[in-house]
């Protein structure tokens, strides 16, 4: 506990709001109101995570991000009022670990901060390399022998059926499964009206492992085709 988070945004009220939210979660918050200020604080203080807005005076968020990445490997979450896919991709490609569009859900933001810090601090060893029986995808880790799914290093409680679905997805990241196939392989019965059953289970799994179940990042619907586990781009 007591990780230090740097929040950089030119909107003082937003910085203050994030400060209140994160302090409630038990983090120490450092404040910056432009890019240069943020770099200055980073050079002096020990910081475990950076929340940085894109549109800032003096030095914009993305430039600051690149400067930070030259020296540090700490998790960086980009905040932006631009919500388009291209903006998100740009931010991630420049070295951001996550991208949160404004206006964000404060609780989701807190969850993402928590998730990034967990992966950075507690699971540092996992970053280095994984064992043969472990499949890693973003913040998820699946142990095929134990059949346990870890999200941000914490085991996710899944029912037997959910575990089988997760097993199928984690072993085949990126592959699209039609509902019928999932049904056949998980329930081992002929598929009939499988769409609803599969969807119900997927929704439950999402609630357990997604940071924002309404905008899932891992288990996604490929509309008109099936379901898949999204393969997360690895940083570095």
């Amino acid at each position: 506990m007591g990780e230090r988070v740097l929040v950089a945004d030119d909107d003082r009220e937003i910085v203050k709001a994030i400060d209140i939210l994160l302090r409630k979660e038990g983090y120490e918050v450092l404040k910056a109101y432009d890019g240069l200020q943020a770099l200055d604080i980073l050079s002096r203080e020990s910081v475990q995570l950076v929340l940085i807005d894109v549109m800032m005076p003096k030095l914009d968020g993305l430039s600051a991000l690149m400067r930070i990445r030259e020296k540090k490997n700490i998790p960086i979450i980009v905040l932006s009022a631009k919500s388009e896919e291209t903006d998100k991709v740009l931010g991630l490609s420049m070295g951001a670990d996550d991208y949160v569009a404004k206006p964000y859900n404060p609780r989701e933001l807190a969850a993402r901060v928590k998730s990034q810090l967990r992966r950075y601090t507690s699971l540092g060893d996992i970053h280095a390399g994984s064992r043969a029986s472990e499949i890693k995808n973003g913040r998820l880790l699946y142990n095929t022998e134990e059949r346990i799914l870890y999200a941000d290093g914490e085991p996710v409680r899944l029912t037997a059926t959910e575990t089988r679905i997760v097993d199928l997805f984690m072993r085949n990241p990126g592959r699209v499964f039609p509902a019928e196939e999932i049904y056949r392989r998980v329930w081992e019965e002929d598929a009939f009206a499988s769409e609803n059953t599969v969807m119900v289970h997927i929704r439950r799994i999402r609630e357990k492992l997604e940071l924002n179940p309404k905008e899932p990042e891992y288990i996604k619907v490929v509309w008109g085709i099936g379901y898949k586990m999204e393969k997360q781009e690895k940083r570095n």
Partner: protein
Amino acid sequence: MDTKWKNRKKGISFLVFFLGISLALGNIAAIFRDRPSGVRIWQLQRLLQDDYQESGRFRAYMTHRLEDFLIMATGGEGLWGIWGYADGTYYGGYDRDYYYSDYGDYYGDYYEEYWNGYTEFQEAVREMGYPQEAEEDSADSGSVSSMSVEELADYLEGLEKMQDDYLELLDMIGDSEQWDSDQMEDFRYQLEDYRDGIEYYLGELQSYRPELDRERMKPLTEEQKQIIARKYHERIQGDKNLLYTVAYDGKALYSNSDFLPADGSMAAPEGYDFVLYFDGEKVRIQKDGKEVDIYGDGYYRDDSDWYLPGYRNFQVDETAKKAAVCIAVAKEPVLFSEGAYGNGGTKQYDNTLYWMDRNFRDRQRNLIREFKGLAIGIVLLFAAFLCRKSRQEAAKSIARFQARIWMECKLVVFLLFFYGIYLFLLVFLIDGSGYSLREEMADIVPPLLWVALFWGIWLLWNDLRHNKKIWRRSLIAELYRTFSAKSLNQPLARKIARRNRTVFLTSLVYGALMTGEFLLIYSDWRDEGIRIAVLFLVILETVLFLTALYLTGAKNMKAAREVDVLSGRIAQIRNGDYRDRQAMDSTGVSANNTAYNDAGWPRNVEESAGQNLEPVMAQLEDIRHGMAKAVDEQMKSERMKVELIANVSHDIKTPLTSIISYVEILKQEEGLPDYVKDYIRILDEKSHRLKNMVQDVFAVSKAASGELPVQMEELDFGKLLRQTLADMEEQIADSDVTFRTEIPEEPVMIMADGERLYRVFQNLFQNAIKYSLEGSRVYITLRTDGQLAVASVKNTSRQELEKEKDFAERFARGDASRTDGGSGLGLSIAQSFTEACGGQFSWETDADLFVVKIAFRILRPYIAPKETAQ
């Protein structure tokens, strides 16, 4: 099955109609032909009675017989069928006209007339003075030889021909000045030949002269008349179908029956049912023992049945008053013959009555048959009238068939048909001259021809009635259409070029023809007829050529005028006059004062058109430039609009982030009074709604400007619907409405962006949940309609739907109060996203039923996949 029966019914009803008309018409014509003359067709009683003695022919026969008997009784002359008698020998013909009576004999007249004419001819020859030999042909005239009439006629005919040829030769004397000696010699021989011929005939005529002497022709003597009467009696007495007794002055002269006294007792032997008695003044007739009324009111008229003496206006002379004649006629006549072997064989007697009876019976039989046919025809016609609907169908079918035939063919067939009838009538009219045309038509045109005539006219009428514009289906029209269709499809420039080529080639052909024909005319061509024909040809060709020239010229003129109007218009548009043509037509004057004269030429041609099309092209280039700029600017402004909205939404998002964040902080604050918590709840709700709205506005504006990025992929429409429904299952389960789905299990593959399409149906389903009547059902169906897959969402609105409202309009909602959580962009997003994916979006209302339809083109028909192996 049904149509088969219908077709059969059609066929049968028309057949009935056809037979009915044919039978009725044919038999009416036949009845007209076969009916006894003087009997009207509606006098059925008279038409169908089977007693030959009631016929007009019988009455005429009896009249003639009585006349003959009276001639015999009174010693008159002119008995029928007896050879003439003169100079102690019989000769002549079967007719009164043939043997010599007194002055005025037919051939005698002819001969005398001709003889005199020939004398004139001799005069003419004499006056011309050449050749002198002709003079010798002259002979004494004015006498008639007693040669036989046939011989005389032959000679006269020969003589006439000779005279014609001779006169023709004489005509040629006019040209004789240019003749050479050979021609002259030929001519002389010919003339001499004719002269010899004429001499021969004249000699023959003269040799007969003493025998055929008009002076010696005398009336028959009493004795001769008696011999003729006796001969007549001998000829007819063997025919016992007609018994007669002829008495004069109380004394029986001729009779072929001992049992028929001429005393008015009217006693006739068995089997003779008709008795006629003439007492010297009047005639009495008994038929089957009953007296027949002959005279009526006592005056003879044209329509009186009997032409017999005894009417007040038809009396006999003194000599006949002493005569008495009684005639009896057999009820059923038989054939009488006599074996006159001494004279070399059998001979038949007159037997007129027998044959009359036979013919009469035959005719009655025919008439009865024809009436039966007529009756059947009328019955069939009535039947055809009952099923006239299907008959009209049949007539339409026939018309459809007729419509396929070229008009020219029909025309030829009809003309030939009517020409045939005309020829037929002509032949019979010439043959049977003296009849009135009406009777002629009824009598000589065979019934079959009448029927054919009717059907010919019927076909014509049917064609005209059912087929509008029958001339469209004609060889000429089709040729014209082929050519004009070919030229229609070509660009104007090519058409003009082709016209020029045509004109050039036509001129070439015309020139060649003219040269040839003038050569023909001016060459040393003897025959005037051919020269005139060629001249006529020249005129015809010139007319045709000029017509063709005019027609192509007119077309080019039209094109030129249009080009001019076009270039004028281009100039106007270039100068900034964007009014449409109609507005200009009504004023007649455009912005730069281009007025049009009556011929359609712009008044200031030089300004608008220029000498060539080059300035016009330059103007067009200017317009293109301007338009490109305008389009560019429009695009730019579109982009700016999206940018503006993006900026605005960005600017809204930043304060919104603060609001949402502080609301969240407030929510986590403890110890607040309940009413404050309530305020916070409202703030939370509204701020989230604001967030959704900002996102939606941004999405719609991007989609509307065509900048919405889409990732098109093949997907199963049905699956997408099922997934969307599954995704929204909780929302649906919590709502007051029930969803009824009808989505096929087999894939319906379309090309679309799944994420966008999901948003489309999410919006539609949310709307359906939001605006449906509580407890009602929402119907989701996916159907394939040919090449299209159509998904529809139907729901019953809770609120009354306004008519004519555009629900897909941005911010339009089912109710106007706007208190619910929607952004009002649901349908608008659905529409713009569907269209961005290449689908068709449509919606309609029917009372309170709201129906949205989304259609995509199906990529390929479904083929059942093989089971994928594990």
